[in-house]
């Protein structure tokens, strides 16, 4: 293959052949620049898009003629990734430096103005920081609840007992339900007039019990609903780790009369640590984006507004598109930092062990 590819000579920059990607780039840059300067935005957008397609085509032909089949095979995936992910990401990054509202026809460059506004303006920053603190609180509470419950469930289901298979399916059901269905279910569950929770507590205490009437209750309600839905996910991952531990290690440990506590730390934990870390990572990222349950259960009342819901309100409801873009980048930045911190800690532990 290398022998074949070397026969294709690199064309001169000005040679008009289909695999001359350098020329394609040069043409694309010039055409894009001219169209952006001279054509209306709606037209130049598509001209630039066509120029990008031209470059991509030149690369493809180049790869084909040079028999880079590996590159050709991944090309569709990269194209989809670019169109669906990278392009919108860059586009919204660009938007975050402008004053732009989706329902108005004007756009103005403001540099870092949006970021300054969401972090320091006394009205906007107050909401941002409040929402971030609430989000951090939900991350800590929901993730720890899910990790603990999921872990305990996994320990339980790692053992064999009658009806285990059916109970396992039952425990997994909440995870398969749509969030909206669960949210509506919990709305009724917590409702002081129709709900069973208030009904039971009222008949014991005699007083009217209203769970969602203060912050503690509202947070507890959301955390419980979230843990109910996502603990099974943690359980599944941990369970996979638990069943992969070779039985002979435990047998050897039993012969050595090692306490079950030490057995856990010396044998079980090293096997499930990677999966626990994965569960923690997934759940943290998800919890950071929590909005659906908050919308369904409190609408952000009782100081439960999370950063995602705040973003939905700013960008989708109030049409402050570029301010929303700035908030999304703030969120993205935090998630990336958080994720890398996790990975760093996980790797350091592995090396230390």
């Amino acid at each position, binding site marked *: 293959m290398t022998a074949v590819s070397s026969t294709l000579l690199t064309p001169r920059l000005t040679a*008009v052949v*289909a695999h001359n990607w350098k020329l394609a780039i040069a043409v694309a840059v010039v055409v894009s620049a001219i169209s952006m300067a001279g054509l209306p935005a*709606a037209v130049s957008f*598509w*001209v630039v*898009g*066509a120029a990008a*397609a*031209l470059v991509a*085509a030149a690369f493809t*032909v180049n790869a084909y003629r040079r028999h880079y089949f590996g590159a050709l095979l991944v090309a569709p995936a990269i194209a989809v990734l670019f169109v669906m992910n990278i392009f919108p990401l860059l586009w919204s990054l660009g938007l975050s430096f402008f004053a732009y509202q*989706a*329902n*108005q*026809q004007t756009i103005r460059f403001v540099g870092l103005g949006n970021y300054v506004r969401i972090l320091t303006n006394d*009205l906007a920053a107050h909401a941002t920081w409040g929402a971030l603190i609430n989000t951090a609180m939900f991350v800590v509470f929901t993730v720890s609840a899910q990790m603990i419950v999921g872990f305990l469930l996994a320990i339980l289901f790692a053992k064999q007992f009658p009806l285990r298979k059916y109970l396992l399916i039952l425990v997994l059901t909440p995870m398969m339900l749509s969030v909206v269905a669960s949210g509506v279910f919990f*709305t009724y569950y917590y*409702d*002081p*007039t*129709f709900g069973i929770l*208030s009904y039971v507590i009222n008949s014991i205490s005699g007083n*009217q019990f*209203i*769970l*969602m*009437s*203060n912050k503690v209750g*509202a947070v507890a309600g959301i955390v419980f609903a979230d843990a109910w839905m996502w603990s099974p996910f943690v359980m599944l991952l941990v369970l996979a780790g638990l069943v992969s531990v070779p039985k002979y290690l435990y047998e050897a440990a039993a012969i050595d009369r090692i306490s079950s506590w030490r057995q856990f730390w010396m044998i079980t934990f090293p096997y499930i640590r990677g999966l626990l870390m994965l569960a923690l990572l997934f759940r943290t990222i998800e919890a950071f984006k929590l909005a659906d349950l908050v919308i369904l259960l*409190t*609408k*952000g*009342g*009782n100081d439960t507004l999370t950063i995602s819901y705040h973003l939905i*309100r700013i960008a*989708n*409801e*109030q*049409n402050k*598109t570029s301010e929303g873009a700035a908030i999304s980048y703030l969120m993205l930045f935090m998630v990336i930092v958080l994720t890398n911190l996790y990975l760093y800690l996980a790797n350091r532990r592995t090396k230390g062990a």
Partner: protein
Amino acid sequence: MTAMTKVKGLATAASFAATLLVGGVTYASAEEVTLTMAVPDWPPTRIMKKFFDEQYKPKSGNTVKLDVDFIPWPDFYTRVNASLTSGEKKYNFIVSDSQWLGAFVEGGYFRKINDLIDADPELKATMESMHPAVLNAYSTYPNSTPNYYGFPQFPDVLVTYGRKDVLCNDDEQAAFKAKYNEKLPCTGEEIDAMDWNTFEHVGEFFQRKKGDKLAGQVLDDDFYGIAYQAGKGYDFSTSSVHTFVWQHGGGIWDETKAPTGHAEGVVNSPKSIEGMEHFLKLLKYMPPVVKTGTMDIFVSDQLFREGKVAMNIDWIGLGEASLDPKTSKVADKLVFGLAPGLRGPDGKVNRTSQIGGQPFVLTTWTTPEQIKEAVGFVKWWLSPDIQHQFAAAGGQSAIKSVYSDPKYVTYRPWDRAWANSLDWQKDMWHVPQFFELLTQQQDQYDLAITGKQDAKTTLDNIAKFQEDLLKNAGLIQ
């Protein structure tokens, strides 16, 4: 690939791009015209679609197809907003909430209809026969100027829903009289005459615990006197707070006075605070869900249909469900009257109230043929015959000759309160910033409703926010 094929490829890409650009527009032949419509999913729009399918024969001779997207109320704004701002140009016709007008007119999505009205004497006559409160709220932007954007689809007001079996019970009547020295409202006329004091008394009087007696029967669950929207979502507390603020002589920021009108000193004037405090005082007699800040129009309606409250103030648009025995435990016990008002020292009742209901609007990308058919449809919809049928099926009409017909009040039990309510209806802002005004205000009201802060702090915070926002928008000097 040669240079020529490259050019060809570029041309294909460009034509593909062009198709995408105009993709949203529906091309219709002269024979078949499709009108795509976004509407909230509830009886007034379902009835409209049913009538259209069964009865509509376009005068133009074309085949008109009405392609309706029924969207649940809680998502309605977000979905329509997303469709409009994304530029997909999907809908020709939108049932818009009245306060959205400014936002979507300024965005270039809603089409001004003055030319259509002027060009069509029949349509002009129909629009002129509309009650002015409804026409101003549903059609004009800026509010109350002769710039028209909407045709009323379904006009709506707040009315009192009552339970006859409880209110008219002799024992309850006697006990109420003994306690408050006034008659417990039982008939529609008595409810019409009711002011907030009596309403509050009803609330206090009917607070019963499980095991207590209600109208001679032992209760198996707690019972409450009154319910009235006080929820955090959408405008589910704004509608009730505005009503109280106006009745006490306070105000909201008045866009017709822009740019000299202010929010500071108006929104948080002593009279506005008094109005808000009056509203907050009633909450303690409402079902406990009100303390969670989620008692919206649907929750209070459900509580009423489940037989948990004696009176509920709600939109007429939700009324059909309470009449149907399948969805209502009180279907055979209903009585309706005007929403209560504030009785002044002179004995006159001030009933100024937040108007509900929705107009149709046309979008700017609708083609001339579509507009022609849309106008034909609107004229048909607003024709007296169809308006009578609509009212008979549970809708309402704002056309004078229709609602003043003696037949009108016989259609539905709440129709007796309809025509009388129209005169004192007012609307909130129509400005493009309405959603920011609304969400911030809803957040603040929620804090007051759930007991986190008092009325003065709440209105001070709202006034400060609005003054700042509207100043930046150039609506306040």
